[in-house]
């Protein structure tokens, strides 16, 4: 078990709703962004002197531009339905981590300065003055929300705390009080084209390495092309796919699928990142700038289709926002949705019978699937509502013999966040990340015990990185988290591969490192 400077919750059979304990997480705040992180994003370098007025101005501005914010600030009836739905409350007991508790941090200021009751009878409606302490409290608790939207599923008015925390973060950024992790990363994307700041040559190098590995293993020359003009498909994938485990095994899988489909495809240096942290900080402007790189890459390379790799929040920005931010995409092939998810792509090929698999290569594993929050509650796959749950599972079941779901209260639209989404995937927030994973870890532990599950698959770079770090805190192994296309990669039979399909069935072939 990994060492921690905080108490790691013990896994029980169920996650009980705890009695609240005030202030348990008040000490935790992420590192504050420095001028070098802020200025490239168009924010003041550090906290401005007239922050008080500027905060209120920004709140007015956002209320006039986002209906969600205005309606959600007004509509909450304090029914309490959301209070036990946030993984961070369930694991920290801190009432300011209850969705409505979190919203109220902003709402009490809104009420004080913008509503009749709050102006004249603040004590009656819980309205509070905006002080420096308020600002710090926002900074702390709005960075303990992974914007997973679980609360919005259960609120009778669909009040989405993610919208509130995005607005709060934008207000903080507008007065120079932003979060280092997110802002530094966005600055890197603006400058280098990806979150990790990988330069083009490094990516090219990695991709050549992958081509060699796959060739050595299979004897088939699968290509991992970069910046190829005139390719049919542009693949945009999270930069973690270029090097980290288990992400890269997923990338290998996408390449094999494209290879078998016989389609020409490419990645792009300009758009070497599917992620878009502009969403986490609620900045339309930054999100748009990041999204426009993808349009630019598609135009420059003259592709016909755009496909996204496995990443949760990236898929939200891609599926739900890309057309808005960087559309219209009338220069692409109108027969396909823009963009498509790699799971949709692979699923279609499976449906058409174009891929062949040897499922037994995954027989050393019993799989379960973690629905990533952004995919589950903010997007779709295929043309039916709920396709985002069915399609990845269908892909897994097509390539694996052993699959079971976790407790139904913890998957699908009710899925629990990995604990690291929404711009929290940074070491300075490790405490909330580990604690927030509790409900997911509990459900996983249960299927491990009861169903003999060995591995959990996911389609989100943040989830994968988060679980790699967090699983050991709960006594599990970091490599128990796998990519969906890693499973596809294990099982897919490439035309002309070393030991051809006849003896692949007899299952005596060395199956790589699976």
């Amino acid at each position, binding site marked *: 078990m990994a060492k921690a400077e905080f108490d790691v919750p013990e896994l029980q059979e169920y996650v009980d709703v705890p009695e*609240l304990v005030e202030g348990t997480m008040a000490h935790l705040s992420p590192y504050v962004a420095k001028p070098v992180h802020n200025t490239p994003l168009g924010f003041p370098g550090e906290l401005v002197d007239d922050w008080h007025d500027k905060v209120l101005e920004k709140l007015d501005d956002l209320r006039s531009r986002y209906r969600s914010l205005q309606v959600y600030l007004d509509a909450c*009836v*304090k029914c*309490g339905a959301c209070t036990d739905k946030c993984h961070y409350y369930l694991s920290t007991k801190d009432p300011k981590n209850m969705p409505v508790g979190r919203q109220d941090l902003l709402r009490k200021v809104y009420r004080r300065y913008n509503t009749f009751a709050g102006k004249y009878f603040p004590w009656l409606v819980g309205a509070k003055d905006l002080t420096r302490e308020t600002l710090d409290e926002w900074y702390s608790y709005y960075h303990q929300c992974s914007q997973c939207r679980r609360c919005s599923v259960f*609120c*009778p008015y*669909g009040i989405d705390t993610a919208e509130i925390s995005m607005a709060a973060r934008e207000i903080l950024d507008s007065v120079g009080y932003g979060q280092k992790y997110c802002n530094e990363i966005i600055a890197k994307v603006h400058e280098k084209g990806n979150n990790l700041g990988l330069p083009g040559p490094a990516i090219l190098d990695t991709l050549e390495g992958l081509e060699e590995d796959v060739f050595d293993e299979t004897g088939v020359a699968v290509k991992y092309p970069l910046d190829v003009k005139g390719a049919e498909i542009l693949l945009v994938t999270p930069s973690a796919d270029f090097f980290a485990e288990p992400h890269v095994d997923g990338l290998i899988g996408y390449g094999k699928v494209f290879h078998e489909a016989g389609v020409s495809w490419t990645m792009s240096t300009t758009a070497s990142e599917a992620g878009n942290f502009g969403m986490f900080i609620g900045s339309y402007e930054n999100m748009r700038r990041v999204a426009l790189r993808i349009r630019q890459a598609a135009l420059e390379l003259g592709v016909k289709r755009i496909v996204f790799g496995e990443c949760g929040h990236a898929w939200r920005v891609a599926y739900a926002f890309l057309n808005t931010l960087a559309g219209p995409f009338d220069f692409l092939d109108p027969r396909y*949705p823009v963009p498509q998810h790699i799971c949709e792509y692979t699923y279609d090929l499976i449906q058409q019978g174009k891929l062949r698999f040897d499922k037994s290569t995954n027989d050393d594993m019993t799989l379960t699937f973690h629905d990533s929050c952004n995919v589950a509650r903010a997007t779709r796959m295929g043309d039916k509502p709920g396709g985002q749950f069915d399609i990845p599972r269908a892909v897994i079941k097509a390539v694996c013999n052993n699959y079971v779901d976790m407790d139904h209260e913890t998957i699908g639209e009710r899925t629990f966040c990995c604990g690291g989404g929404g711009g929290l995937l940074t070491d300075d927030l490790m405490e909330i990340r580990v604690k927030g994973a509790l409900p997911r870890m509990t459900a996983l532990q249960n299927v491990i015990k009861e169903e003999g599950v060995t591995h959990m698959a996911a389609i989100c770079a943040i989830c994968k990185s988060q679980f790699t770090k967090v699983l050991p805190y709960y006594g599990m192994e970091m490599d128990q988290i796998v990519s969906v296309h890693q499973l596809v990669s294990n099982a897919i039979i490439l035309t002309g591969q070393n030991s051809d399909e006849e003896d692949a069935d007899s299952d005596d072939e060395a199956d790589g490192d699976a």
Partner: protein
Amino acid sequence: MSTVYALLFIVATAVLVIGLATKIAQYARTPAPLKIPTTPAPVTQTGVVMRMFREVVFFESLFKSTKWTWIFGWLFHMALFVVLLRHLRYFMDPVWLPIELIQPFGVYAGFAMLAGLGGLLIRRIFVDRVRYISAPSDYLWLLLLIIIGVSGLMMKFVAHTDIVMVKQFFTGLMGFSIGTLPIDFALLVHLALVALLMILFPFSKLLHVPGIFFSPTRNQVDNPREKRHLADWAKAMEE
């Protein structure tokens, strides 16, 4: 006294109507720049209407959430709805047949409403999480509605009020002529609090009533790939 009440109701109605209209106009004017329906979401406009219908009539999301709050909350609202319908008889002559037909249920609804409100109040006091998020106004709303309900039922079961006179007063008021109200304690309390409720409505959490219809997570069609969705202020960035 009757004149005071007449003026009170004119003011209350004006505040309610103008206040709500202002709020609704504000919600309608404010753009929703991004597609954010909570998915799985309907992919057609008809689907969205169905979703909204289920939310408003059955409190679908609340049902998924907590059964106790749902039972009390739904009971209170449905009963309130029947009670409100029943009250229409004070404002129309002749009384519309369906309103005539529900009259017998109205009394049960009155009790059901109080039961629901009582449940909600108990939950607010005894569940630590709900207590934590409650401001004084949250208790007062429940008390206000409870007193309105109790005073209403008192007129039926304890001290009868001359409802023919009440009806004449309100139908008269609708033509801006001020009649006389029976001076009964229960009635005066009942009416004063109803007027108070109407005045506070547009400035309070009762804005959940228009709010639910404007909630983007519930009222948007899930079709961002098919149809480009662009707010005016966002369009301005493209120029």
